[in-house]
């Protein structure tokens, strides 16, 4: 696997450098009130009533854009499109390496009316129009297995990759323009000597911040989010309110027991706020998706907590609406109420 790494673009965001980034001012007054909200299920087409092509076999990512929900189904090698009310619109894609085909589509985003798919085992970003036809030359090769993909303002996509497990530092974030020109790479992986433990410690989530940049949330051990501008320049490290608690779990692996401090299972952003999904302990030896969604302000303060009707794996937020993939792999649409 080759990672392109232009010398002038090594704006590393590794945790080793994080202490060099100034903390944002204010973490929360502990006395500040935290609102308690709940979300309720909206009426959507029951999964059992959908046509076969609308079945979500193994949904691994979703994106919301202008009234439409896009779901990447890695099992069916397809992107499945739904209305904001859950109505099925279309499915496109099939297994293969060619135009309009995917091999484990693991991420999806929309930019400028085009659909960008992280086509993991074809080692490319596939670009399609709204009907699912290849657009803009069909996309570009990445040189690595792309995992998730996010639109960062107009004309840029931020692609994540998983480290290979080798004890070397590898960039996990890659910023491209729409033609596939690499603009920036960063956020280097860390190695602690145990490849399994390393894989958990290197798990992170991306929350786009509109056209201004993006946030990085580590899934464990780090009670802070990293803020970058849209060019990959590190802007700061935002400590998160300590009322948002870690979820420790003992990893059941060989060798000395390792406790992992679970922090966030999934994350999204909307209107300048971060939405962090708390993980939940599973059988005392693992972490799984939770049902409590915390709203975090730009200053790291915990503003509110939303109780979801069920556990979710991935989600997107648009105002009071939450579009989520639940623990059974179904699309849930929730409305936040008082």
């Amino acid at each position, binding site marked *: 696997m080759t990672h392109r790494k232009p010398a002038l673009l090594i704006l590393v965001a590794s945790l080793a450098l994080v202490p060099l980034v100034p903390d944002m001012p204010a973490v929360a007054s502990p006395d500040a009130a935290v609102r308690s909200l709940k979300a309720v299920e909206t009426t959507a087409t029951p*999964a*059992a009533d959908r*046509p*076969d*092509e609308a*079945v979500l*076999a*193994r949904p691994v990512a979703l994106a919301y854009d202008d009234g439409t929900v896009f779901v990447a189904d*890695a*099992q*069916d*090698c*397809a992107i499945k499109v739904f209305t904001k009310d859950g109505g099925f619109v279309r*499915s496109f894609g*099939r*297994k293969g390496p060619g135009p309009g085909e*995917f*091999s*484990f589509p693991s991420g999806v985003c929309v930019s400028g009316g085009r659909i960008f798919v992280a086509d993991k*085992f074809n080692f490319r970003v596939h670009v399609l129009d709204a009907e699912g036809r290849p657009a803009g030359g069909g996309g570009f090769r990445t040189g690595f297995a792309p995992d998730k993909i996010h639109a960062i303002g107009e004309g840029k996509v931020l692609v994540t990759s998983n480290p290979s497990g080798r004890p070397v530092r590898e960039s996990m974030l890659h910023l491209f323009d729409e033609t596939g020109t690499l603009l920036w790479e960063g956020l280097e992986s860390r190695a602690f000597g145990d490849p*399994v433990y390393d*894989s*958990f410690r290197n*798990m992170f989530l991306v929350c786009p911040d509109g056209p201004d940049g993006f946030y990085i949330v580590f*899934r*464990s051990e780090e009670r802070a989010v990293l803020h970058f501008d849209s060019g990959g320049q590190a802007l700061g490290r935002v400590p998160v309110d300590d009322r948002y608690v870690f979820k420790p*779990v003992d*990893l*059941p692996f060989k060798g000395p027991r390792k406790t*992992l401090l*679970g922090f966030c*299972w999934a994350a999204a952003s909307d209107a300048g706020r971060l939405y962090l999904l708390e*993980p939940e302990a599973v059988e005392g*030896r*693992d*972490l*799984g998706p939770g049902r409590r969604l915390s709203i975090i302000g730009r200053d790291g303060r915990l503003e509110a907590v939303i109780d979801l009707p069920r556990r979710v794996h991935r989600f997107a937020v648009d105002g009071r609406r939450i579009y989520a993939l639940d*623990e*059974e*792999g179904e699309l849930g649409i929730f409305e936040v109420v008082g």
Partner: protein
Amino acid sequence: MIRPALAFLLATGLGGPLPGDGRARPAGRICASLEEAVPPGGRTALLVFFSTGCAICYDDLFESRLLVERNGWPVAVVGVHLGPYEELKEFLDKYRWDLPVVLDRRKLLFRRYRVTAVPDTVLLLTGGEIAHRSDPYHDHGRRREALRMSLERIFGRGADRQAIPPT
């Protein structure tokens, strides 16, 4: 967080018709339900939840069958697959798998047995009671050995180990 990592090698597939949704119903070894694969009150059933592009699943599926057949245990090995019909059919043809496989597009069995990642194995007694299920935190060898022990508890020591004196 761990289970998805263990189950990372998942299959991909092609779109296709679904049994039970009013369209073409798959025939032969591809079954629309567990009841079709193993009639109620029939044999003990070993459900192997698998995905066609997953090497570990392939091992679990074929080694489970080998274990049962080699020891002559009266167990019906039943695959359970979630992906599209064409993908499953291609897999079964390629590997000449002639035992029943339930095409579980609507995740009925996945939900009933709370399977969230593959491979996973569930041993069902004739009354539907779960006699064994695999531990996703164990490696392939430990899972296979645990399955063997469960089957031996039910049916006695298998033919392939009868030559070995008990310890």
